[in-house]
């Protein structure tokens, strides 16, 4: 008698060529076992990849078909958004150091997964980012000069979600995974082909919410893609605290196909995301992507990573830089030359200048606006509180308090 007994330390690899059939369930029945041992949880090379660290292209029968159509123009756009993201990020850090921003959570090192997955989206898709997804939001069309103000303390959220189909950045770890799933259930009910995307980190996978999101997504076959940026750290905790086995291995237990990709390889990120989105649009339900990447900077500008990790580790990851890798590839392919690179650098400088000037120009809104938008409809109690507070403020001789 055979029966189901599953052990944690094995995945069941399916031929990569099966991936693009968009039907993992069928594909899997042709699988061959993957016998690598448990230790591969930390194996950052146990990933699907199209570009090696030096920029050389490797074949992957599963992923290749999903990017064959990328035009030079699209490739340059990917590159450009990665560079712009890095520049935005560098500027964010600098502005915080100079007291212009209250806080900045750097995304350096994670540009490929952010930009790559975002470029795969259709305008009607909706993203639910965490606080670190600067590249996703930039690629979605958030105006950088408005966007940064969410980190200056002027606003909780500084872009209009309706224009870029992106929810406000989520700070409560994992909460947005449920919102994405619910939104996807709505798209499903509308008979639309729109897909929701939840972005979160490796640490978030420990939260009940993320697991409940997988339960709901699976139960309703909701068109949602979970993108877990496994950047190896949740503040000071290495991913091993959250997961002894690869995170990508968790979703299948919920009935959700998953793929572990090189999160520093933008082509793999585009390809995997297109595959996942396509599955969703065809009614195939949710997909889980684990993008193996690295948070090159501190958790936020308030953090001191030297307390918990070695510079060795950081240096090793620097060799896997997503932008350098892609640049090398594009140059080799003749898609990018010095002059194009100079253009991008100039655009990045312009972006940085605009962001900086927006910060410097920013003025704090009027005190009474703290009472706005608590409710969508009139609220007598709050109106009284507002009037009282304005009366109190009016008692001051100067308007210094404002």
């Amino acid at each position, binding site marked *: 008698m055979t029966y189901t007994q599953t052990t944690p330390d094995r995945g069941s690899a399916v031929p990569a060529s099966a991936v693009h059939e968009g039907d993992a369930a069928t594909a899997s029945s042709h699988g061959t076992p993957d016998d690598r041992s448990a230790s591969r949880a930390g194996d950052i090379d146990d990933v699907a990849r199209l570009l090696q660290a030096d920029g050389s292209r490797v074949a992957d029968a599963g992923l290749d078909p999903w990017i064959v159509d990328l035009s030079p123009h699209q490739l340059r756009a990917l590159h450009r958004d990665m560079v712009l993201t890095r520049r935005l990020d560098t500027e964010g850090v600098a502005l915080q150091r100079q007291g212009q921003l209250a806080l900045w959570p750097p995304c350096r090192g994670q540009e490929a997964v952010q930009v790559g997955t975002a470029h795969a989206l259709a305008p009607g898709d909706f993203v639910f980012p965490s606080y670190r997804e600067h590249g996703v939001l930039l690629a979605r069309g958030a105006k950088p000069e408005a966007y940064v103000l969410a980190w200056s303390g002027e606003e*909780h959220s500084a872009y209009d*979600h309706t224009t870029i189909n992106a929810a406000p950045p989520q700070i409560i770890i994992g909460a947005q995974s449920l919102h994405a799933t619910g939104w996807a*259930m*709505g798209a499903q009910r509308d008979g639309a082909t729109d897909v929701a995307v939840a972005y979160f980190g490796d640490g978030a996978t420990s939260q009940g919410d993320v697991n*409940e999101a997988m339960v709901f997504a699976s139960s309703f076959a909701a068109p949602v893609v979970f993108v877990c940026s496994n950047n190896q750290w949740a503040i000071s905790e290495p991913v091993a605290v959250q997961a002894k086995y690869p995170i990508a291995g968790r979703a299948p237990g919920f009935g959700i196909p998953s793929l572990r990709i090189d999160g520093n390889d933008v082509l793999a990120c585009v390809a995997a995301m297109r595959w996942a989105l396509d599955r969703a649009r065809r009614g195939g339900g949710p997909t889980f992507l684990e993008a193996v990447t690295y948070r090159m900077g501190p958790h936020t500008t308030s953090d001191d990573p030297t307390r918990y990790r070695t510079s060795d580790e950081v240096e090793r990851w620097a060799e896997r830089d997503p932008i350098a890798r892609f640049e090398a590839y594009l140059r080799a392919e003749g898609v990018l030359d010095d002059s194009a690179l100079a253009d991008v650098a100039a655009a990045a400088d312009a972006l940085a200048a605009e962001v900086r000037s927006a910060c410097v120009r920013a003025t704090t809104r009027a005190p009474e606006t703290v009472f*706005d938008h608590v409710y*969508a409809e009139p609220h*007598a109690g709050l109106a009284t509180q507002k009037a009282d507070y304005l009366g109190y403020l009016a008692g001051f001789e100067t308007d210094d308090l404002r």
Partner: protein
Amino acid sequence: MSALTLGAAINAGLTRAMADDERVLLMGEDIGKLGGVFRVTDGLQARFGPQRVIDTPLAEAGIVGTAVGLALRGYRPVVEIQFDGFVYPAFDQIVCQVAKLHYRSNGRIRMPLVIRIPWAGGVGAAEHHSESPEAYFVHTPGLRVVAASTPQDAYVMLRQAVASDDPVVFLEPKRLYHSKGEVDPDADLADAPPLHLARVAREGTDATIVTYGALVGTALDAALAVEDEGLSLEVIDLRSLSPMDLTTVAASVRKTGRVVVAHEAARQAGVGAEIVASITERCFHHLEAPPERVTGHDIPYPPSKLEKHHVPDLDRILYGVDKVLDRTGEREVVL
């Protein structure tokens, strides 16, 4: 007009809201085929289909969290929490997301969510099935919190809650699910009293009882009980706990000078504290006696055989009335 139980009135309200607006969805555990453990959603899945009356996995954070996403997509989800004591797993989603998304987004996101909660005790239930968590929600800016005490109010207020662009915690006194009353199913929402207003359930002059939910009936009984003694009690059904209609309350207290505030929830930092504090601030010079709180004790809900020693009843409300009228010891207690 037809006589409906409070449960049936909510069912009718849901039916009407769903018929009027196809973006209205119901979500919850066992609300479909079973019609909910209290049968409040009975027949709705058969009528509107499983796409609109959704039996969800057993996870309250999941229910509320996906409802947030559905609201973002333009739906108006009405979620059922099976019992009051099971709302806490969803607390983070309610407090940090449902209540704050409108503010977080500078008003761009709306959260027209209704969270229905069969609520409070007195029904002989097991642990966690008789909780009164309203103060938690009343203390949370961004939420509206309402409690109906009659079938007519339940019918109208449910529809108003669904129509509201703000999130509404809709408390259903489960002890009253089977109590009947006249309901006008064709009531025009425009003619109905707005959701945020309190109702003077009975006019009186000697003292005011402010309460909500199932205790409104008990307060009315108290008013009736002291009629013979020549006492005239005013009874206010708060209906909306957030916002609170302090105008109506203050007007009454200014008239009577004496007030009893009653609720089932624990006393400390309960809704009664807010009512007493607000009354004191607004009616200080009209108060002839300190306001009196008649509430559940500051204990976890006790085993059901002992709940009558926790949930305020007629006698305890009368005792409170005696206190504000300075007549304790005078009453002949007949049990």
